[in-house]
C-alpha cells in the first residue's frame, strides 16, 4: 500500500502537535507528511511567549527542530504560505508558485490579532503580540519609547502589559469594557484585579473607546477617546482579541462561520471531503477555542479519524488559572452565573486582597463555576468538581472559606476523583494515567513528568498531580519517606533529636548506632556536622568533624567556580570604622582580590587561593576582624539602618541592637543560613520583613517578625510579637531559633519550615511565648551553652600550625594551581571564561 500524503497547513502549536502525534503513532509508516509555515521557523511555544522578556531565548521556546523533522521524514517548508486549495484535484498552491498534491489536508492556520479599525493604527510603533517577530519589534520600539499603552485588558493584554513594564516603560492598559478580564471575571473579581494591578504601577483606564490616534505633544502619539479624554504615549500594543485565520478556507469554498472560523464537526472535518481544521482556526458548535489544550484535543481527534478511528471532539473546558503581573487569577466554568437559577457564594477579604465566588446550581448540588483572585489554591479542586459534575459538600461555602486554624480551606480528597478526571489539560493526562504510572513504578514528580508528560505544559496542575501521586503511593503501601539519604532512615529533625537526647558527639558514633552502613555521603555528613555544631559547638575542624564538612567549612571560605575562595569578615550591624575599611582595602589590594559590597552590609573579597587564606586572615584578625561565617549554614548578617542615633525619624538605636544581636548569634550553625535585620522605625529601611528574624523599632520597644525570606522564593515575615523590651526580644529569638534548629529539615529555610509546621504561626507562638511544650528553658539553655563556646574559627586556625598544613594546593610541592586564569574587567580581575582561555586573551597567570 502506498503512503497517504498528508499536508498540514501552518506549523504552529497545534499543527506541530498533529505531526508529532503521527510520528509517534504505531502507523507512522503509512503517512508521508508535508507542512508549510508562513513563519520563518518551525513551531514554538506561543503560550510561553512572554518568557522571552524574562530571559528565554528563541531556542528555549522551540517545540521541535529541523533535525527532528528531518530524521522523522517530515517534509517542511518555511517562509511560504498556502494561497489556494483545489479540492477537486486535491492540490494546494504556495505563494512561491509550487503546487503539491494531498490525500488529506489539515488546516492549522491559527488566528491573528484583531486590531480595531481606528484611524492611525497603521503607524510605526503600533504593534501586536503574537509571534517572535512581534516580540523583536516590541523590544526595538521600547528602546525608543518611555510610555507604552496596551489596548485591551483581557488575559493577553495583561500579559503584554507585564512585558512593557519589564522593558522599563510607563505602562497603561486601555479597556473598552467596564472591567479587566471581562470574559473570565465577574465584577468583584475584576475590581480586585484592577486594584492589585494598579498597585504594581500599571495604569488602568476602563470604559475607554479609542477613536483616533494622532500626533502627540509630549509623546509620539495621542490616543483620543470617545468621551473626549485623551492619553499620550510613545507606543501602542493592540491586544483586543484574536480572529480565526480562515481566509484561505473562505476563498476556496470551505464553510466558515458568520463571524469567522472554519466550521468543523465532531471529527474535525470541514465541509469539504478530506479536509480537516484544528486549533484556533476551527469553529466547533459555533465556538472558537482560544487555548492550546482544546487544539491539542482536536489534533488527536483528526488523526484518529484519518487513521480510521472513532474519537470525537465534544467541546472543552475553558477554565483558566494564571499569574498575571504577579497576581493569581482563576476562572472556572460559568463564571458569570449565566445558568438559569444559578446561586452564588462570595467571599471577599479586603485586608489580604482575596476574592472568591462560587456559582452553584439551583438545588445547590453541583458546582457550575468559580472566580478566584488573589488566592487560587482551591482551583484544582473546583475545576475538577465542575468538569466531573461531582456532588458538592453539604456546606459549599467551606470550599472558599479559610479554615479557622489559618490553614487553607477544605480540600477535596483526591480519592473522590474519577479515574477519567483530566488533571493536566495541556497534555491531556487523566487521574487514571497518573495512577497507572505510579503502579508502573514512578514515585517522584520527575518520574511522573517523564512518563506521562503531566505538568510539563503550563504547570498549573502540578500540586494536584503530586497529591494524586502521593495518594496512590500510599494506597500501594509505599511509605512516602523523609529519610535524609541512603545512610539514615531518619529525617534531619529526628537525627537532631537522637544527637541531643543520646548525647552523640561524632558522625561515626551516629552512623554506627543509627545508620545503614557505608561511609555516609555529602548529604548526611554536613547535615550531621551541622547538628553536632548546633548542639555541642565544637571547633568545626576538630579531627573527628573535619571529614564531615563541605569544602567551604573546611577552608572557612566560599569556594568559587574556579576553585579559589572568597573572604567575608564579620562587620556586625554593617558598622565599620574608617581604619578597618582601610585594612580591607589594603589587603584586597595586596592580594589583588576582586572586591564587592554584599547585600548584607559587608565586604566580600574574591579570588584568594588556598595558600593565601591563612596569610590574609592573619592580617585581618590582627586588625580586629573575625570570620563572617559566610561559608557556613549559619547566622550570616544582621542588617540595620542607622536608627535614632543619627536619623531624624528613628525611635530606637537599631545599630546598637543589630550589633548586640549579631554578636550574640554569630557562629550559630543551623539547618540553613539565617539572616536578620533591625530597623529603627516603621519606615523599615533595613527591610527586616524579608529576613528570618526581623526586628522593627516602635515607640515602646521592638516588634519581632519571623520566618521571612528574600531570595529565590520571597516570603513576607510574620509579625510574631509586639512592643517587646530588649530582654524579652532576645529571649524570644533564642527560643525561636533553637526550636527551628531542633525541628527543621535539612536545608529548610525558616520560611518553609513555618509553612510546614503543623499549627503554623499560632503554634509557634504557643511554644515560644506560652511555653506549651514546657521546653522554653531548655531552648534558652542550649542557646546559652552554644554562645558560651563561640570561637572565631579563623583565629583558632591560624594559631594551630597543624591545621595550617591543609592550606596549600599541593601536599608535595609549593607550586600553585596552574589552571587559574584571569582577565581584567572594570579595573578588577575575574576568572577568564572558556573562550577567553582558548583565545589566550590577556589571560594573566596569577602567581603569588
Amino acid at each position: 500500500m502506498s503512503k497517504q500524503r498528508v499536508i498540514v497547513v501552518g506549523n504552529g502549536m497545534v499543527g506541530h502537535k498533529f505531526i508529532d502525534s503521527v510520528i509517534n503513532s504505531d502507523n507512522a509508516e503509512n503517512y508521508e507528511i508535508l507542512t508549510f509555515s508562513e513563519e520563518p521557523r518551525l513551531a514554538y511555544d506561543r503560550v510561553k511567549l512572554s518568557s522571552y522578556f524574562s530571559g528565554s531565548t528563541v531556542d528555549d521556546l522551540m517545540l521541535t527542530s529541523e533535525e527532528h523533522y528531518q530524521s522523522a521524514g517530515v517534509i517542511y517548508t518555511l517562509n511560504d504560505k498556502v494561497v489556494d486549495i483545489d479540492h477537486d484535484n486535491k492540490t494546494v498552491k504556495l505563494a512561491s508558485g509550487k503546487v503539491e498534491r494531498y490525500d488529506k489536508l489539515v488546516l492549522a492556520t491559527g488566528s491573528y490579532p484583531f486590531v480595531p479599525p481606528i484611524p492611525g493604527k497603521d503607524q510605526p510603533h503600533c504593534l501586536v503580540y503574537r509571534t517572535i517577530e512581534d516580540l523583536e519589534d516590541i523590544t526595538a520600539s521600547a528602546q525608543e519609547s518611555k510610555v507604552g499603552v496596551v489596548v485591551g485588558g483581557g488575559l493577553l493584554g495583561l500579559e503584554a502589559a507585564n512585558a512593557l513594564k519589564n522593558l522599563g516603560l510607563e505602562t497603561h492598559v486601555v479597556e473598552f469594557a467596564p472591567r479587566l478580564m471581562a470574559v473570565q471575571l465577574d465584577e468583584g473579581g475584576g475590581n480586585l484585579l484592577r486594584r492589585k494591578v494598579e498597585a504594581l504601577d500599571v495604569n488602568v483606564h476602563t470604559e475607554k473607546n479609542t477613536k483616533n490616534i494622532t500626533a502627540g505633544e509630549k509623546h509620539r502619539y495621542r490616543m483620543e477617546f470617545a468621551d473626549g479624554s485623551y492619553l499620550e504615549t510613545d507606543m501602542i500594543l493592540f491586544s483586543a482579541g484574536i480572529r480565526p485565520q480562515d481566509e484561505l478556507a473562505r476563498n476556496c469554498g470551505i464553510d466558515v462561520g458568520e463571524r469567522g472560523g472554519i466550521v468543523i464537526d465532531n471529527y474535525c472535518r470541514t465541509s469539504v471531503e478530506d479536509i480537516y481544521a484544528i486549533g484556533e482556526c476551527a469553529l466547533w458548535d459555533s465556538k472558537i477555542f482560544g487555548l492550546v489544550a482544546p487544539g491539542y484535543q482536536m489534533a488527536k481527534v483528526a488523526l484518529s479519524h484519518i487513521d480510521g478511528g472513532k474519537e470525537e471532539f465534544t467541546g472543552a473546558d475553558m477554565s483558566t488559572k494564571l499569574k498575571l503581573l504577579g497576581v493569581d487569577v482563576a476562572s472556572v466554568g460559568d463564571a458569570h452565573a449565566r445558568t438559569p437559577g444559578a446561586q452564588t457564594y462570595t467571599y471577599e477579604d479586603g485586608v489580604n486582597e482575596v476574592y472568591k465566588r462560587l456559582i452553584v446550581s439551583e438545588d445547590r448540588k453541583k458546582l457550575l463555576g468559580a472566580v478566584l483572585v488573589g488566592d487560587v489554591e482551591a482551583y484544582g479542586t473546583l475545576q475538577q468538581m465542575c468538569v466531573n459534575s461531582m456532588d458538592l459538600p453539604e456546606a459549599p461555602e467551606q470550599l472558599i472559606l479559610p479554615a479557622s486554624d489559618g490553614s487553607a480551606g477544605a480540600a477535596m480528597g483526591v480519592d473522590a476523583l474519577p479515574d477519567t478526571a483530566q488533571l493536566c489539560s495541556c497534555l491531556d493526562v487523566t487521574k487514571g494515567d497518573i495512577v497507572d504510572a505510579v503502579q508502573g513504578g514512578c514515585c517522584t514528580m520527575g518520574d511522573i513528568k517523564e512518563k506521562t508528560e503531566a505538568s510539563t505544559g503550563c504547570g498549573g496542575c502540578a500540586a494536584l498531580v503530586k497529591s494524586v501521586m502521593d495518594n496512590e503511593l500510599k494506597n500501594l503501601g509505599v511509605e512516602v519517606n523523609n529519610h535524609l539519604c541512603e545512610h539514615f532512615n531518619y529525617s534531619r529533625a529526628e537525627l537532631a533529636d537522637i544527637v541531643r537526647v543520646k548525647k552523640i558527639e561524632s558522625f561515626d558514633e551516629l552512623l554506627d548506632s543509627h545508620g545503614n552502613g557505608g561511609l555516609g555521603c555529602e548529604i548526611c555528613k554536613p547535615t550531621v556536622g551541622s547538628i553536632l555544631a548546633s548542639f555541642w559547638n565544637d571547633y568545626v575542624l576538630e579531627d573527628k568533624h573535619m571529614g564531615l564538612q563541605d569544602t567551604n567549612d573546611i577552608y572557612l571560605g566560599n569556594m568559587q567556580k574556579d576553585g579559589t575562595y572568597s573572604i567575608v569578615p564579620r562587620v556586625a550591624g554593617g558598622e565599620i570604622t574608617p581604619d578597618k575599611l582601610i585594612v580591607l582595602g589594603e589587603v584586597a589590594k595586596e592580594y589583588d582580590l576582586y572586591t564587592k559590597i554584599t547585600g548584607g552590609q559587608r565586604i566580600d573579597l574574591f579570588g584568594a587561593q588556598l595558600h593565601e587564606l591563612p596569610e590574609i586572615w592573619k592580617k585581618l584578625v590582627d586588625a580586629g576582624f573575625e570570620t563572617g561565617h559566610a561559608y557556613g549554614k549559619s547566622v550570616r548578617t544582621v542588617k540595620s539602618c542607622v536608627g535614632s542615633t543619627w536619623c531624624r525619624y528613628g525611635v530606637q538605636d537599631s545599630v546598637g541592637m543589630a550589633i548586640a544581636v549579631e554578636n550574640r548569634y554569630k557562629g550559630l550553625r543551623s539547618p540553613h543560613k539565617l539572616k536578620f535585620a533591625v530597623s529603627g522605625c516603621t519606615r523599615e529601611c533595613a527591610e527586616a520583613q524579608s529576613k528570618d528574624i526581623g526586628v522593627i523599632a516602635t515607640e515602646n520597644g521592638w516588634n519581632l517578625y519571623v520566618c521571612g525570606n528574600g531570595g529565590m522564593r520571597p516570603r513576607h515575615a510574620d509579625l510574631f510579637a509586639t512592643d517587646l523590651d530588649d530582654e524579652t526580644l532576645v529571649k524570644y529569638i533564642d527560643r525561636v531559633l533553637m526550636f527551628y534548629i531542633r525541628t527543621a529539615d535539612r536545608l529548610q529555610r525558616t520560611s518553609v519550615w513555618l509553612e510546614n509546621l503543623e499549627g503554623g504561626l499560632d503554634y509557634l507562638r504557643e511554644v515560644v511565648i506560652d511555653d506549651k511544650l514546657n521546653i522554653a528553658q531548655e531552648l534558652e539553655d542550649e542557646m546559652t551553652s552554644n554562645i558560651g563556646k563561640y570561637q572565631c574559627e579563623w583565629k583558632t586556625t591560624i594559631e594551630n600550625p597543624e591545621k595550617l598544613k591543609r592550606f596549600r594546593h599541593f601536599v608535595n610541592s609549593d607550586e600553585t594551581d596552574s589552571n587559574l586564569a584571569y582577565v581584567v574587567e572594570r579595573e578588577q580581575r575575574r576568572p577568564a571564561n572558556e573562550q577567553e582561555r582558548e583565545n589566550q586573551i590577556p589571560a594573566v597567570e596569577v602567581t603569588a
Partner: protein
Amino acid sequence: MSANAVSDEQQTQWIEVCDKNALDSDTGVCALINGKQIAVFYVGKLDEVFAIDNYDPIGKANVLSRGIIGTQGEHICVASPLYKEHYDLRTGECLENSDIRVTAYAVKIENGKVLIAV
C-alpha cells in the same frame, strides 16, 4: 593496606608523594606528579588510600581533592565540591554520567609513605 590495581604492576613506576600521616582521615589532599594534579584520599574506616585526577571535568577546575568522601551503594566515591557529581574512587567513573570518567591511579602505603603509580 591494599593497592588498587589499575595499572600493570610490572611497568608501573611508583612515586613517593608524602608521609601517610599527612593524610587526615576521610579527607583528600592534592599531589603534583610529573606536572599532573592527583587527588589522594584516605578513608579511615577502611584504612585505605585512593587516587584519582584532581581536575573536575564538569566544573572545569582542580578541586576534586576538596570534596566529601562517602558511599553511594557499593561505590566508594568523592562528591565534587562544585556541582556535587560523584566519582568512584576505584574506577574514576562519574556515577551521574557514565560517559564521563577521570583517571584512577594505583596507590599504596609502604614504610609510612604514600606511593602512587603513574
